[in-house]
């Protein structure tokens, strides 16, 4: 079964997953600390919010481990209602909750024994920097000894407007007319009116100049964009307490889809040096080891419909999975093994899913009675990277073994297993279904023609059973002319039927796995356009174990609210049909039970 020993020890640094903050609304974090149990100080790491937060996950993990390597305790965490923390991302009035999360993180470090003098340091990026700056200036005394503002948003308004524009300029442009009223839409994440108002109130340019942000502050700004005059003016008030530098590499970190983000190495080193220098004169003192534990966490707003959540590891690669279980699991198990649902990370992004929907779906399904685990495959998110391999390799060959071990472990007590995935996660689901018995696969926008894993790429392997790998000349062409290569490939496979992605679904279906696909038109056509296979497609739908929906309400990356809601609705219905619970589902009424 999944193991509970979660801490990771590497190069003299121990990283432990922690829950902290309010007991009825716990916050998720990872504490990285020197393995000898001592530290010279502590650092709170305030990540960006929204899609930028997903993109910066690897950077913040690296930052935490590097700071711990310099003798500090680093706490990277998710704000209330974001990432893996309790709460919903679209609950009202988020800004106060996010600011309170920063204070809770600072307090948690002090509780672990980090010396109160000179005090805790903080590093914030983008809106995380804005929030850290606002929190720093909120009290009579600065909250932090040292503060790093890494490419800060000058204000919450700027953050929101940028996000709204990126949403409108992106692949969701055509769906703008169908936007749900009352929400401010950014890629993947939506905010209510109260949160939008709250964001307007956080503004680094308007912080009182008479109140220092910290004893020392480092401001890193992009060289490829003008610095907002209001930010420059306010930061000048820090006088000799201020250092400045270039936030190089932010374009490769944030201006690309999260799965393509690159850690900005030079600024990361600069941040580590700056923070470590602030504690250079401090002698190491013993600090407590954080406690690994499960928590009871609400699956709905205000802590309603609680479930039990814990972190576990799976397989010899010890990949990380976050497990949600119903509170009455023992009672339910008396009727037979409770089914498992697996939510797979997308490409090289960590396990929270688009708009952190995997977190919310997992908790809701657990509240209904399922056991759910959302995972990071090897080299991604919070999971280890195999020795000698690079981080964040989408379609890494070791993912095949990760998924096989996971499914084997979940089925050990005879439980039925269903897998839900998006894009590459759908591929991983179908791949493992070709190796091990999987009862059900819900595939959102599956792409089984794997150009990134074609022959000649770093992740090529001939072990794949659920991939259509383009032949070498087309794979080479695709590196420079992707659209042309795709067109040629699609014409070619009209005749070379054995490359048709529909056949993969057929093989999975024949192995006894129920399959449902929902896809935007671009992704759906790969399964429907081979004329010779249309009778097979018709027959598959007649089996009653295969569903297929071509729906342009779905965007490929599931970044729009209506696609996310539709995905949840369809996946939930699919699970109830294919993995029925043996005892009646608990009410999902948000007010039914409180944590």
């Amino acid at each position, binding site marked *: 079964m999944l193991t509970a020993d979660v801490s990771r020890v590497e190069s003299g640094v121990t990283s432990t997953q922690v829950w902290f903050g309010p007991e009825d609304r716990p916050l998720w974090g990872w504490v990285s600390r020197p393995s000898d149990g001592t530290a010279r100080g502590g650092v709170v790491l305030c990540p960006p919010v929204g899609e930028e937060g997903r993109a910066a996950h690897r950077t913040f993990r690296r930052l935490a481990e590097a700071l711990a390597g310099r003798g500090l305790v680093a706490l990277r965490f998710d704000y209330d209602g974001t990432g893996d923390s309790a709460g919903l991302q679209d609950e009202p009035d988020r800004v106060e909750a996010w600011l309170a999360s920063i204070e809770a993180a600072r307090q948690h470090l002090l509780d672990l024994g980090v010396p109160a003098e000179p005090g805790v340091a903080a590093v914030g990026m983008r809106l995380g920097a804005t929030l850290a700056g606002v929190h720093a200036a909120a009290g009579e005394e600065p909250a932090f000894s040292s503060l790093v503002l890494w490419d800060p948003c000058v204000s919450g308004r700027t953050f929101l*407007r*940028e996000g709204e*524009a*990126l949403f*409108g300029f992106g692949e969701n*442009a055509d769906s703008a007319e169908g936007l749900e009223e009352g929400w401010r839409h950014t890629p993947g994440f939506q905010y209510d009116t109260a949160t939008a108002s709250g964001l307007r109130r956080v503004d680094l340019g308007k912080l009182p100049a008479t109140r220092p942000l910290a004893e020392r502050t480092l401001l890193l700004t992009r060289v490829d964009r*003008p610095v907002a005059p209001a930010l420059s003016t306010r930061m000048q008030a820090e006088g000799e307490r201020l250092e400045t530098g270039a936030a190089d590499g932010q374009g490769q970190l944030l*201006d690309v889809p999260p799965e393509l983000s690159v850690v900005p190495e030079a600024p990361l080193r600069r941040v580590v040096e700056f923070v470590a220098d602030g504690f250079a004169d401090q002698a190491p003192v013993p600090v407590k080891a954080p406690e690994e534990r499960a928590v009871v966490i609400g699956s709905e707003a205000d802590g309603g419909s609680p479930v039990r959540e814990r972190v576990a590891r799976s397989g010899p690669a010890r990949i990380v999975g976050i497990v949600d279980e119903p509170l009455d699991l023992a009672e339910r198990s008396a009727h037979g093994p409770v089914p498992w649902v697996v939510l797979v990370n997308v490409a090289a992004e960590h396990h929270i899913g688009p708009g952190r929907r995997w977190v919310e779906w997992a908790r809701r399904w657990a509240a209904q009675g399922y056991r759910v685990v959302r995972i990071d495959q090897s080299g991604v998110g919070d999971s280890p990277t195999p020795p000698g391999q690079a981080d964040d390799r989408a379609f890494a060959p070791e993912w095949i073994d990760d998924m096989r071990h996971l499914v084997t472990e979940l089925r050990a007590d005879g439980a039925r297993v269903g897998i839900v995935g998006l894009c590459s996660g759908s591929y991983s689901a179908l791949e493992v279904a070709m190796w091990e018995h999987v009862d059900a696969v819900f595939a959102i926008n599956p792409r089984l023609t794997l150009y990134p894993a074609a022959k000649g790429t770093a992740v090529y392997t001939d072990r794949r059973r659920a991939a259509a790998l383009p032949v070498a000349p087309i794979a080479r062409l695709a590196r420079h002319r992707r659209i042309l290569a795709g067109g040629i490939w699609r014409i070619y496979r009209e005749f070379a039927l054995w490359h048709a992605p529909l056949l993969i679904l057929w093989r999975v279906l024949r192995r006894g796995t129920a399959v449902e696909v929902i896809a935007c038109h671009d992704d759906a056509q790969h399964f429907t356009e081979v004329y010779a296979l249309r009778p097979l497609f018709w027959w598959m739908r007649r089996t009653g174990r295969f569903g297929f929906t071509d729906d342009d309400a779905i965007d490929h990356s599931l970044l729009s609210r209506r696609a996310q809601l539709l995905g949840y609705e369809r996946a939930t219905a699919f699970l109830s049909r294919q993995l029925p619970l043996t005892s009646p589902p608990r009410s999902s009424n948000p007010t039914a039970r409180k944590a």
Partner: protein
Amino acid sequence: MSSTVTDSIRALLAEHARLGVDVASLSDTDDLYTAGMTSHASVTVMLACEDEWDVEFPQQMLKKSTFASIANIRAALAELEVEGASA
């Protein structure tokens, strides 16, 4: 035609759009994306316009075509009743 608003748009583009060409070489109807403006740069242009004229583009105007040319930006500002943006 308002030369003041157009000139201001050109100045903002020169500072924020990171075009591959001199903005002075572009006509009002030339495609800014073809001239090298990225989606992220156009977001910066959008924010600069909002700051310059103290307006907020509504969600339905937040699409790439709104910022695809100087003329389009001016038309959007006219729709928001920015003084001098109307022909």
